[in-house]
């Protein structure tokens, strides 16, 4: 019996050894070395083009399948289910008084508020933004299959193959790369930290950071298109971008060097943070310091004043939005008074939804989702720098920057606060409505008393 096992044993060991060597060599040649030098073979773009063709074919098959069964295909609406009246409160109330009577309170005034209330029950702007975007076609991922039912056996087989490829090949590959990337980051930044401060250290630190982020980009199979790179942020400025997921950081930092801002964490992230700060100055806050706005503002302005330090990277929305709109920017970073470099990031949802719904999924779950999608495809636009104008306060400046980012990225520009994801609507909004209504009534009764 034993004599049978031995030759197989050594054969298996040999095979395993060879496959590991081949695996790592391929990894090194095709992924790690290009990452170090910042070049690309174009493999990922080829992959993306073939995936698009595949999705189109899958969609056609579903349409054909539906026609065969003589049923109508149901296309999800991304624009809402009702047509909302664009008239304002004043116009509506005056409309109701067409009889020519003085605009004083009438029992029918309640209709306006009632209708608006029910309209918002059926369809409201804000809830839409915090759930993942609906797709027009299926991308062979079960998790984006909330509406799709017409799946023939051919498609199911294709989906099965897709699962095998994604979980059996892509996922282990990506996890290996991720570990390599993060490991190298920690080790190399600590080594660079041993150098004395000076030009050599900054140069090395830049190279090390870029290389590790590029490996992480490949770990996610992220295919990024950068536009307008002449507007890239320079030292002594702040870079602001819209926020969809924690991956935004990796995407931006693999094309330029930034100083990160964030809270000190424990665990693995804490280790990474401590290592990074040895190589070049990042801004990490203790949990207690985060509450003190003056302290935060002071540290940011000190950093910005030092022209040898890297531009700061900030996400003013404060939370992850689902990449169909840009929500209100918190004004803190706009009060500092330096040049702001806006950046717009738009993900292509066909390949993998990068939005992190932190109330539904934890970080590890999210990363697993990311690494088992087909790819992350996104576009980054660097907008020309903006500064605060005369007579503009921080909030207006923030809104101006927000509008520019929304326009460039093709996202809807909303007034709503990203904090609405979790918190309650401030009483102030209700008062606004009351003020508007009272102006219509009381304002007009003043006119009456004068006549």
């Amino acid at each position, binding site marked *: 019996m034993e004599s049978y096992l031995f030759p197989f044993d050594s054969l298996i060991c040999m095979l395993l050894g060879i496959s590991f060597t081949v695996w790592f060599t391929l990894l090194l040649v095709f992924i790690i070395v290009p990452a170090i030098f910042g070049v690309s073979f174009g493999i990922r773009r080829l992959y993306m083009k073939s995936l698009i063709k595949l999705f189109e074919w899958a*969609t056609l098959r*579903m*349409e054909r399948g*539906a026609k065969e*069964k003589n*049923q*109508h*295909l*149901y*296309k*999800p*609406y991304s624009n809402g*289910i*009702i*047509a909302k009246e664009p008239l304002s409160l004043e116009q509506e109330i005056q409309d*109701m008084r067409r*009889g020519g009577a003085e605009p*004083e*309170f*009438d*029992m*029918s005034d*309640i*209709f*306006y*508020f*009632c*209708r*608006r*209330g*029910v*309209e*918002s*029950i*059926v*369809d*409201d*702007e*804000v*809830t839409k933004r915090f*759930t993942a975007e609906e797709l*027009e*076609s299926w991308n062979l991922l079960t998790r984006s299959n909330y*509406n*799709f*039912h*017409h799946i023939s056996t051919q498609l199911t087989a294709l989906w099965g193959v897709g699962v095998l490829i994604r979980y059996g090949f892509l996922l282990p590959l990506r996890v290996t790369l991720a570990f390599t990337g993060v490991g190298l980051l920690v080790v190399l930044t600590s080594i660079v930290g041993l150098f004395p401060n000076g030009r050599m250290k900054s140069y090395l630190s830049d190279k090390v950071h870029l290389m590790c982020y590029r490996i992480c980009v490949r770990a996610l199979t992220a295919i990024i298109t950068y536009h307008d790179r002449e507007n890239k942020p320079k030292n002594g400025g702040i870079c602001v971008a819209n926020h969809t997921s924690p991956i935004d950081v990796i995407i931006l930092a693999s094309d330029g060097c930034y100083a990160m801002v964030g809270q000190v964490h424990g665990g693995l992230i804490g280790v990474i943070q401590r290592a990074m700060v040895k190589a070049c100055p990042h801004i990490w806050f203790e949990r207690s310091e985060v509450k003190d706005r003056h302290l935060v503002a002071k540290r940011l302005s000190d950093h910005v004043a030092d022209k040898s330090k890297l531009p700061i990277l900030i996400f003013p929305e404060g939370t992850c939005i689902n990449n169909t709109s840009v929500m209100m920017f918190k004004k803190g970073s706009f009060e500092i008074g330096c040049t702001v470099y806006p950046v717009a990031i738009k993900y292509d949802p066909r390949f993998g939804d990068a939005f992190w719904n932190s109330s539904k999924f934890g970080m590890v779950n999210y990363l697993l989702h990311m690494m088992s999608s087909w790819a992350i495809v996104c576009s980054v636009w660097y907008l020309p720098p903006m500064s605060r104008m005369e007579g503009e306060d921080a909030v207006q400046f923030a809104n101006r920057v927000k509008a520019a980012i929304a326009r460039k990225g093709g996202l809807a520009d909303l007034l*709503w606060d990203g904090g609405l994801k979790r918190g309650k*609507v401030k009483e102030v*909004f*209700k*008062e*606004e*409505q*009351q003020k508007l*209504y*009272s*102006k219509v*009534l*009381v304002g007009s009764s003043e006119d009456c008393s004068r006549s």
Partner: protein
Amino acid sequence: MGSTSSTLLKIPNVEVLMQETGFSPAHMIRLHDRFKALDKEGRGHLCPQDFGAIKELAMNPIGDRIIGAFFCPGKETVDFHTFVKILAHFRPVDKNRPKEPNSPEPINSRSNKLRFAFQLYDQDKDGKISRDELLKVLQAMLGMQVTEEQLESIADRTIQEADLDRDDAISFEEFRKSLEKVNIDHKMSIRFLR
């Protein structure tokens, strides 16, 4: 994309519901999706907090009253049927509907729309809007923007104009009469797409 019929089957008693409310299959699917989106915990019914989570509704001065209109007295949850039936009040009036003498009045008739608005005023459901109830609505809609005296004078004047039988309260008939000239269909309807 998916076929309409397979999604419709997931909704219990959908045929009856469509007949009672007059919504089309496409509307039912969209409303069902919306119901599920509001029902974040997936319990199959909605409670007041789910409505309260809609930010635009929370900022509406009479938001609480509208939410209250969905819940029958004593019940703490709203299932999909009730949800759709209440929303049916806001369908535009069917101008071409044949007048069958024995069929029940459709949910979105002018009269039923008025009744819905009436119950927003009449919170204790005694069939009359008392001076107090009117004051409460005025307070909700105007908040701190006007003085107590102004509110009271508005309430007094409104009751004076509408109260025909001089019982110091507005009944449904008086309510209806005072709103004779208002285009209820336009003001209390929501244009559902498709």
